[in-house]
C-alpha cells in the first residue's frame, strides 16, 4: 500500500487534500450562484417598464352612478362616481362580516367620498371584473362581479363573496383639483 493511499484512508477522513477539495468546491459553488443571478434578474421588470409614467384622469365627464376604466401600468383601473345610496351602503356594512376587513373610509381619499378608485384586477386570479359599464352584471352587492370564478365585490370594491382573498387594491393616487386625479 502506498503512502498516498494511507493518508486518504486515514481514520479521521479529513486531511489537507479534503480541505482543499471542500473549499475549492465551495468557492466554485458561490461563484456559480452569483453568476446565475443576472440570468434570473433579467426576467424582472426592465427600467423602461418601471419608468411607466403616471396617468392623469379627468373626472368631470363621469356622471353619478357611472364608472370608467383607464389603463395604468398595463392594468385596468376602475374609477367610479358613486351615488349617495352606494356610499351609504358601503358605510353601513358591519366590519366583522367582511372577508378582508376595511372600512369604506380607508379606501377613499378624505373629502372625496363619491370617488372610488381601485385597480380592476380580481385579487383571485387577475381577471377584470364586470360592473363598470352600464348593463354589466354588478354582482350581488352592487359593485363588481368577476365572471371567471364568481367573486362579488361591493360598492367599496371589497370582496364579499367568492374565492378572491382580498379587496380590490387601491392604487396610489391624488386629487390635482376637484375634477382630476393623478394615478401613480
Amino acid at each position, binding site marked *: 500500500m502506498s503512502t498516498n493511499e494511507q493518508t486518504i484512508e486515514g481514520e479521521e477522513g479529513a486531511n489537507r487534500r479534503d480541505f482543499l477539495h471542500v473549499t475549492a468546491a465551495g468557492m466554485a459553488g458561490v461563484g456559480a450562484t452569483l453568476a446565475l443571478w443576472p440570468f434570473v434578474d433579467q426576467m424582472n421588470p426592465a427600467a423602461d417598464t418601471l419608468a411607466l409614467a403616471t396617468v392623469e384622469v379627468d373626472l368631470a365627464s363621469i356622471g353619478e352612478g357611472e364608472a370608467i376604466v383607464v389603463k395604468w401600468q398595463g392594468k*385596468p383601473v376602475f374609477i367610479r362616481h358613486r351615488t349617495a345610496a352606494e356610499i351609504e351602503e358601503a358605510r353601513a356594512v358591519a366590519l366583522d362580516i367582511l372577508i378582508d376587513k376595511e372600512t369604506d373610509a380607508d379606501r377613499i381619499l378624505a373629502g372625496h367620498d363619491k370617488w372610488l378608485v381601485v385597480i380592476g384586477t380580481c385579487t383571485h386570479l387577475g381577471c377584470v371584473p364586470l360592473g363598470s359599464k352600464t348593463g354589466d352584471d354588478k354582482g350581488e352587492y352592487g359593485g363588481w362581479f368577476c*365572471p371567471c370564478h364568481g367573486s362579488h365585490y361591493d360598492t367599496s370594491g371589497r370582496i364579499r363573496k367568492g374565492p378572491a*382573498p382580498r379587496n380590490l387594491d387601491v392604487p396610489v393616487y391624488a386629487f390635482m383639483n376637484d375634477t382630476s386625479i393623478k394615478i401613480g
Partner: protein
Amino acid sequence: MAEWEAVKPQNKALAWFEERLPVLSLVNNVMGSATPTPRNLNYWWNFGSLAGLMLVIQIISGVVLAMHYTPDTAMAFDSVERIMRDVNYGWLLRYMHANGASFFFIAVYIHILRGLYYGSYKAPREVVWMLGLVIFLLMMATAFMGYVLPWGQMSFWGATVITNLFSAIPVIGDDIVQLLWGGFSVDNPTLKRFFSLHYLLPFVITGVVLLHIWAKKVSDSGNPLGIDVKSGADQIPFHPYYTIKDAFGVGVFFTLFAVFLFYMPNALGHPDNYIPANSLVTPDSIVPEWYFLPYYAILRSITFDLGIPGTDIIFIPAKLLGVIAMFASILLLFILPWLDTSKVRSAKFRPAYRIFFWILVVDMILLTLVGGRKPEGIWPLLGLIGTVYYFMHFLVILPVLGKREKTLPLPESIANPVLKAAE
C-alpha cells in the same frame, strides 16, 4: 436487462463507423430485432410510440411555424393570421401544430392510464414512471406557453390566470408573479419569454424521453399479465413484431388525427382566441384547453379557507389551497409506486382494483366536464366531490386495497397460457 448484441454491418464503410460509434447496435438493442419483448403486449402498448411520434410532429411543425411567427404583442396576432392566409400551407402547419398538441395529450393520457391499469409504475419500473411524469409536467408547461403565443383573448387571459396562481404563494408570491411577467401585467416581455421557452422545452422533453426509454430498457417492458419474463419462450423480438403492430396503430391514430385536422380543425379550440388580446376586457368565461380541464376543476373546487371554524384563524386561504390541490394532484403520482401496496401489478388479477380504476376514469371525465363549465349551480359541488374522490383514490383506497384485496392466481409464465391453448 438483456444481453447487448453488437451489429456487424456487411458494408465496410458502415462497419468502420459502427466500430467507432455503435448507433446501429444501440437502436437494434432498444427497439430492434435484438430487443426481446414480452410476447403478449396488447394495443394499449401502442401509445408510447404514438406519443413519441407526436413529439416529432410538434417539433417539426413548430420549428417551421417559428419561421413565420413574430413574438411581439403588436404583431403576434397578425403574424398568426398571416400564417393562416398568406403563407403557403401555413393553415395546414398551424392546424397540425394546434391539433397535434391535443393528439399528443390524447396519446399521453392513454399511455398513463395504461400504466395505471397494468401497474406499470411498480417495482422495478418506478423510475420509468417518474421520468414519464416529468415529461408530462414539461408538456403541460410547453402547451400552456404555446397557447399564449397567438395573443388572442384566451391566450392573454389564460396566461393572466395561470401566472396569477403563483401570487397565492405566501410572502414572495407577488414578486414571483412580477418576475414571471417581467412587468406589472402579462405583456410584451411575457410573450417573448414564453416564445423562447416554448421553443426550448420540447428539446428538454426529448432528452427526458431518451432517459425514459433508457430506464425502460434497463427494467424491460412490462406486459398485460404483469408477471416477470421467465424464459425466451415469453419473448419475441421487438422488430418486426412490435414495429409492425405500432405501425398499424399509427395508421389508425393518424386517420383520427386527419379527421380533426382536415374536417374540424377548430373543434378543440376556443373561438375567443380569434379575438385579439385586450387587457381591459375579460372574456365571458376563461376556459383552458381541454387537456387541462380536470386540473382547472380541482383548482376551482376549493372555495373555502382551511382554518379553525367559527374564528378568524386561517392556516391556508382558499386561493392557496386550490393551487396546492392542483399541483398536488400531479405530484402525488410521483409517490404512487409506494401508495399502491399491492404486490400484483396487473388489474387483470385485481378484481376490486379494476372497479376502482374505472371509477377513477369516470371521476376524471367528471372533472373535465366541471372544468369546462362556469362555476354556477351544481357544478362547483360536483367539482368538489370529484376532487375529494381523486385524492381518496390515491391516498386511501390504493393503500388499503393492496392489503385487503383478494387477488386472482397469477399464471406461471407469459408463454404458458398461450402454449397450453395451442396444444
